[in-house]
């Protein structure tokens, strides 16, 4: 006997994500889900960003990490509220983990919630967290073949931050092809070319955060 089920496998996660989205919306918070490979520079970008947003946007940070609190400790040093989620082996954050993190914040006091996902270019993008925008951080030294190898993360992201631009001359990466492929997957994506280490190109990125952070605030 065949039994039709026809159910979205991610239905439960999507339902919890919708609840999170509602919580963010009612608190007037814009939530970002920052994704990228391990070592792409997500945390360093976030640190340089927090320095620039200080006194202008009130930011909270949820750090996703498999086991450690190393990233959360770096963020905490910038004096912003931060909560560490340890996934205990899981390669991505899901909506339930984020929902459990939210009571640890005074949401009324925040404009922007930055959720730094587990370092991974594949899995996190499948799991909505209730964020308004997904952002992919790709360090250029990862190679210009990455967009076509991992198209979904570029398709679903509103912005792509190309980090470690200071290393462009030291690697065989064709920046023109890299950007062309990103735009062919997602013509509407915003691309920011930055070096978090050299602190270049961060102005446009921070300006964009101001635009989206104020929209609902």
């Amino acid at each position: 006997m065949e039994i039709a089920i026809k159910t979205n496998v991610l239905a439960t996660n999507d339902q919890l994500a919708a609840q999170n989205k509602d919580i963010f919306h009612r608190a007037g918070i814009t939530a970002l889900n920052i994704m990228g490979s391990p070592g792409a520079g997500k945390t360093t970008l976030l640190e340089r960003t927090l320095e620039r947003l200080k006194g202008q946007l009130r930011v909270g940070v949820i750090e996703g990490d498999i086991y450690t609190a190393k990233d959360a400790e770096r963020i905490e040093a910038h004096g912003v509220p931060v909560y560490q989620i340890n996934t205990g082996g899981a390669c991505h954050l899901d909506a339930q983990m984020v929902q459990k993190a939210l009571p640890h914040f005074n949401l009324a006091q925040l404009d922007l919630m930055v959720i730094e996902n587990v370092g991974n270019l594949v899995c996190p993008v499948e799991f909505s967290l209730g964020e308004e925008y997904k952002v992919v951080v790709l360090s250029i030294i990862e190679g210009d073949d990455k967009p076509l190898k991992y198209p979904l993360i570029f398709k679903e992201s509103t912005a792509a931050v190309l980090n470690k631009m200071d290393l462009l001359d030291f690697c065989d990466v064709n920046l023109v092809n890299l950007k062309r492929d990103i735009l062919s997957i997602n013509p509407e994506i915003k691309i920011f070319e930055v070096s978090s280490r050299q602190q270049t190109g961060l102005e446009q990125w921070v300006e964009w955060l101001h635009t989206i952070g104020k929209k609902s605030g």
Partner: protein
Amino acid sequence: MHEMSLMASIFDILTRHLEDYPGVTVKKVTLRIGSLTNAVPEALEFCFSAFAQGTVVEGAQLEIIQVPIKIKCRECQQESEPVEFHFRCPGCGSLAVDVTQGRELALESMEVE
């Protein structure tokens, strides 16, 4: 390896449905997986066997129907399948296209005896 999480959700849904059919064993489970998702069929099969062990699903066949990506042009309404993830209308060249198919991660059906 988020296929483990996906399979956990699949077995939650299966278990809920199986409550209505006490005493049956599952012969086949059918999934619809879009080509734009990051779910790898081989990984899904591996996770399926792991979750099925010791349950009424053990030994069941896992059928995966791959759903190709389709896009629809917002300008000329033409539907097409993108080549190598180039999301551009082959008819009018417009970049204003919507993905209409290829993001499926669905538990379609099960066959029980």
